[in-house]
């Protein structure tokens, strides 16, 4: 397997996330799609880390970044879901069409 295989697999996942972000209207699902984008980024990163050995071992800086990204994403999901739940409590909807309080 070459680096390109991994990069392209991750790239397809990235595009899937982007695609989902555009077609879906459910805020929760869009949030999931954004997680797909993050997962694709981490996969790319790990692939680079493994294929670019530094003194014989996978690059540790990249793996650290992956580790931090996963942690941060978890915190982001927690806060994000709290906001979405609060929104649902006041509007009874998680659809984007129902967000129309703020406009020009």
């Amino acid at each position, binding site marked *: 397997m070459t680096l390109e295989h991994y990069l392209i697999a991750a790239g397809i996942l990235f595009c899937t996330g982007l695609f989902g*972000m*555009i077609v879906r209207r459910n805020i929760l699902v869009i949030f999931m799609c954004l997680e797909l984008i993050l997962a694709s980024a981490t996969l790319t990163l790990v692939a680079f880390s493994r294929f670019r050995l530094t003194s014989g071992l996978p690059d540790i800086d990249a793996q650290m970044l992956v580790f931090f990204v996963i942690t941060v994403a978890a915190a982001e999901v927690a806060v994000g879901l709290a906001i979405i739940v609060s929104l649902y409590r006041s509007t009874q909807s998680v659809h*984007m*069409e129902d*967000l129309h309080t703020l406009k020009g």
Partner: protein
Amino acid sequence: MVQLPWLLLLLPLATAALIHFALGGSGRLAAWTGTASAFGMLGLSVSLLVGATAEASPFVWLETGMFHPDLEQAITLSLKTDRLALSMMLVVTIVGALVHLFSLTYMAEDKARPRYYAGLSLFLFSMTGIVLAGNLFMMFIFWELVGLSSYLLIGHWFTKKSAAEASKKAFLTNRIGDFGFLVGILLIWGAFGTVDFNALERRVDLGNLPLTGGLLTAGILCLFAGAVGKSAQFPLHVWLPDAMEGPTPVSALIHAATMVAAGVYMLVRISFLIALDPTAAMTIAWIGGGTALLAALLATQQDDIKRVLAYSTLSQLGYMVMAVGLLASQAAYFHLFTHAFFKALLFLGAGAVIYCCHHEQNIWKMGGLAKRMPLTFATFAIGTACLIAVPYVTSGFYSKEAILDSAYAASRPLFWIAAFVALLTAFYMTRLVVVAFLGKARSQYARDAVEAPTPMAFALTCLTLLSIVGGFRFFAEAILPRGFYPTFDSPHHNFVMAVSIICLLAGVVASFLLYRGREKDPLHITPLRRGLYIDDLYTGLIRLFQDGAAAVAAAFDRHILNGFFLGGTAALTQAVGSVFRRMQPGSLHFYLVLAALGIMLLIWATSTV
């Protein structure tokens, strides 16, 4: 060691601060402080002119390293105290001091006198800044400040809606010109790497021209745009007549003698640049000539005494700008110099009339004032004589001849326009004098009018003297820069003079015959009364622009992007067809799509392998 030029600049600022912060409660004290400071400035500028050391060390304001790493030059607040600046300073301070004196009585009953005098001092500060500015950048800053103080003074009676509107109009119109000015300064900076007058002139003298062709024309015209705004040239002339809503002494100071002349002064300062580019120069000349003609035409149909004078100011400024464009900036400056005195005189005379007629400004409600206010009449008549250029005895004659001479030499069409403007000037000024001062009184106020009080009369007398001697060689040559006083030795001088005298006589006689003994205006040309509808056009355009820009921005948001991609209003949905029918506008969705498209375009634009 106090450097006198800096003192001259900072004295009015200190006065303004003192009046604003400490003397806000006492109108009387504020008035006397302001007047004393104005006379102090007059003293300073006289002493500078007669030989006190005018050296002023520059003050580094911004290291340009912050702006321009390649040039080891700083933007300085430097003063240029050559003869041009000092003579202009003399004009500004003389008129300023006399206007202060005049205001002592004119504004005596005003409740907001501290604000008024603080405004006047602030204005004098800004004007001094423009005159003494050593570079374009500094000039621009004071240019803006002068706009601000003029805005405050026009809107002095801001509770009056028309005054508030007029001040707003003046401010906004000036901004348009100022933006041109700023672009011009940027262009000059970008090309020459400096905006210092001395350095620029040195560059031009050495023939070192980084700016050529269309760019040079554009740069000069951009700088000229500043003058168009400030000196109220067509098409930005509309603010000046409205600015007459301000107190009359303010009109005399700002809108006749000094601020509006600042545009011309600036053009004279950069005349070495204008001379480089014939296209720009010709454009300037034609705009000046056009303004002169337009304003003179409009002036013939005004009923408000101040508006007549305002249009006449416009017309005279047009003369000056035309002269600058014809590369006769000496003549332009000489006319600026003489015009300042007699136009201030006319405005103050009008102020005296208005004051004595209980703020009546319509000339058709005056009449017969010559008998009741003989001194005012006499001074006003002399001022008029100067403006219409009565030969040999008035200052206006010398300066106008200088301009006509240069026009004849440079451009025949402009010469004939100028001559026709001279005829119109004689016509409308005679009309003004005949209607307002001669004949019978046509209102109670006019019947009850009495002679102006002493400080006013004193100010008028001083200005009358200056209006007469201002054109004489012994006086003018003592003040003006060397070579600015015209020589009148051109071969066609006699012809030019004959034309101007014929125009003068024709205008005076026609007007006298037409208006003598009339009760109301026999001529009624609506387009001229309405300022050729230029104002209405602008109002419409502004409304169109404001609504249009808002509509375009909103439509871009709602229809083009939102609508095209996501469906929007019903109309668009119909137009695009069934594809978009089921969709609803979802703005968050739109933002996400916009972002995704943005990312796509960014990647696409840059990472093509």
